[in-house]
């Protein structure tokens, strides 16, 4: 098997799986219980929180566990709006956000908020001018992703804080860093963001855990109510096995060394791909090297994905590219219909090798020969 779909999810590391197994079978207590099993669980929860905080570059008091990146994004957005709604009606976001952000924006727009979507260029970047003019003094929230999940575009979110200050805006700054976590430095204080979302299953942790960084002193309002877990911000009994697995996976993050390896792999793949006739790379050159989006005109995305799958290779079609459902991101960066309908996304992890790239290229040539006549 060749797994080139690491932006969708990643295999769980052995250490994470072992730690989870222990939590499932032996150390199964509820961290809210006051008996010895509960206390043991509470300690494990605290340790996991520290692991996530260290990997992100913040204090553990600033980490709130959630059950997914989606729940963290929803909590960040609605929690900010609930806190700030008397200060204004304007919200600024980019037009390439993940559905767990963009669907929240749609809802807020329906509720009467003035949502401004920053337009993007062919690389998927918004312009600093547009950002500056979008943020006004009645803007209450800015939510922009760090890395785009379909093409790997890196947004320069550092400039948001300055724009907010210049506009004398009360805006809270949220950043969806799910695709960036574990791949580049995302230290929140360095990026100048107040809220940041990360997820476990993109970094070789299990599904079922995510986290929201909340800058110390910022008291966004809870969106999910219940028994007061996570200091009342995200209620619900903590999914201990998933959270502990998440913490273990965080300990194994080593983005500095990995980055060069992946960059090499990407450059190798890109050079091989560009040798194939009439195949295009849709990701910008300076994109995060973990993601390459390509188009193979006349070979529908689904056919490539199915063919690769038959041959034991996992890649994904653009994003959720279905018949009649074109990728929103690729449409917005202005791809032609022919390239839209034939796009696939290859996403690497440090487990991948150049040999695997060779096999993939070989199969890519095969499917092209099979379908293009």
């Amino acid at each position, binding site marked *: 098997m060749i797994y080139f779909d690491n932006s969708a999810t990643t295999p769980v590391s052995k250490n994470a799986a072992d730690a989870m197994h222990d939590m499932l079978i032996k150390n199964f207590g509820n961290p809210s219980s006051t008996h010895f099993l509960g206390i043991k669980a509470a300690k494990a929860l605290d340790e996991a929180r520290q692991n996530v905080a260290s990997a992100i570059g913040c204090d553990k008091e600033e980490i709130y566990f959630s059950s997914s990146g989606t729940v963290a994004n929803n909590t960040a957005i609605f929690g900010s709006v609930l806190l700030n709604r008397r200060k204004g009606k304007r919200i600024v976001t980019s037009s390439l956000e993940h559905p767990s952000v963009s669907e929240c924006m749609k809802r807020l727009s329906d509720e009467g908020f003035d949502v401004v979507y920053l337009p993007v260029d062919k690389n998927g970047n918004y312009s600093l001018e547009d950002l500056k003019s979008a943020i006004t003094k009645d803007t209450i929230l800015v939510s922009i992703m760090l890395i785009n999940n379909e093409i790997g575009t890196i947004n320069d979110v550092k400039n948001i804080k300055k724009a907010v200050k210049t506009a004398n805006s009360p805006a809270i700054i949220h950043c969806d860093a799910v695709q960036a976590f574990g791949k580049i430095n995302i230290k929140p204080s360095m990026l100048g963001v107040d809220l940041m979302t990360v997820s476990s299953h993109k970094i070789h942790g299990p599904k079922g855990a995510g986290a929201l960084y909340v800058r110390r002193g910022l008291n966004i309002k809870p969106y999910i109510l219940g028994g007061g877990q996570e200091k009342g911000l995200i209620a619900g009994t903590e999914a201990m096995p998933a959270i502990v697995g998440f913490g273990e996976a965080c300990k194994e993050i080593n983005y500095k060394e990995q980055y060069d390896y992946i960059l090499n792999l990407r450059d190798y793949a890109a050079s091989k791909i560009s040798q194939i006739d009439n195949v295009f790379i849709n990701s910008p050159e300076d994109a995060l090297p973990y993601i390459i989006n390509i188009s193979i005109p006349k070979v529908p995305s*689904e056919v490539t994905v199915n063919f690769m*799958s038959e041959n034991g290779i996992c890649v994904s079609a653009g994003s959720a590219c279905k018949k009649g459902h074109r990728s929103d991101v690729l449409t917005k960066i202005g791809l032609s219909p022919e390239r839209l309908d034939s796009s696939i996304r290859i996403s690497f992890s440090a487990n991948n090798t150049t040999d695997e790239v060779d096999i993939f290229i070989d199969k890519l040539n095969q499917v092209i020969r099979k379908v293009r006549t």
Partner: protein
Amino acid sequence: MKEVILIKNGELALKGLNRNTFEDMMIKNIRFRLRDLGKFEYQKAQSTIKIEPLDDDIDFDEVVERISKVFGISAYSRAIACEKDFEIIKEAAEKFLGEELEEVSTFKVEAKRADKRFPMTSPEISRELGGYLLSKHRNLSVDVHNPDITVTVEIRDTQAFVRGNQLMGAGGMPIGSAGDAAIMISGGIDSPVAAYMMAKRGLRLTAIHFASPPYTSEKAEIKVHSLLSKVAKYSGRIGLLTVCFTDIQEAIRDNCPEEYFTLVMRRMMVRISQKIAKKEKCLALITGESLGQVASQTLPAIVVTDAVAKIPILRPLIGMDKREIIEISRMIDTFDISIEPFEDCCTVFTPKHPRTRPTIEQLEEIESAYNWDELIETAVNTAKFKAIN
């Protein structure tokens, strides 16, 4: 006092001396449908089939839901079986129908006394029970011509039954009574409806699906499984054969003119399907074609498709509008699955300008460019079987 189901069979009563066979077939079908819900006793008596649960914790609503989908049942009712004692019958009627009677305004009581030893006559039973129910429900008045609810009391040999209005059954004929046929299923809206309609006429179904990996995905096959499992709620178990169609589709692409792709494909599908039908002892094929709906369903196109068929092709939707088909697909709960967007083999290599007035001679000439026999044999012999419940 115990809740039971009473079943009336419609057309079955017309089948003269075969009636017993048909009834037994229907009971067998019902037994199979209810097999995982608990233990039941089945009794045939006086043109009614009684189903009585033997366990105490049976989900009776689920039983009724499943019964409502068994073909051959024209009407059925939930009833209370009780002792043949008028005091108990009164109590049973109030307990079983009281809530329902609160919500309507008119009713009547009908009594049928099969056991003439019962001390009250039918009119007496009606009058007495009617009076009792009137005294319990101030909202009610009697209307013998057009009542909202008819409360029926039947005094049988061993016990009495009290029931409210009858419910419409699924109608049709018991599955298996008409023999076996094979439905060609794509994953669209039409073919599951066609399958449902022919099952209703008593056909036991085998299904044939054409998959063209990598042009079609495994998800399209899973979609067909979910569609068939909805149909199976009516038709009972369906044996599905999935044919790998890729080589044939590629051969069509490489050897035939584009505007004929779909027509050649349809003819190949019929050739393969009837061979599979023969193996599976099916006497006919079923398709979801509707006249003129798409280019391959014009009359000339149907002529060229039928030209290769050696067994009948049943097309229950041939005279129906899309709207009517969709209505049935919603009723049998296949619509929402059908509209999930996955490529099926019918949409792979679709010609831009398909022929709508082809002739048999044209098709025969086009197909003579290639020897298809081996590919057809392989497709028939490599079809994968899966039982869908």
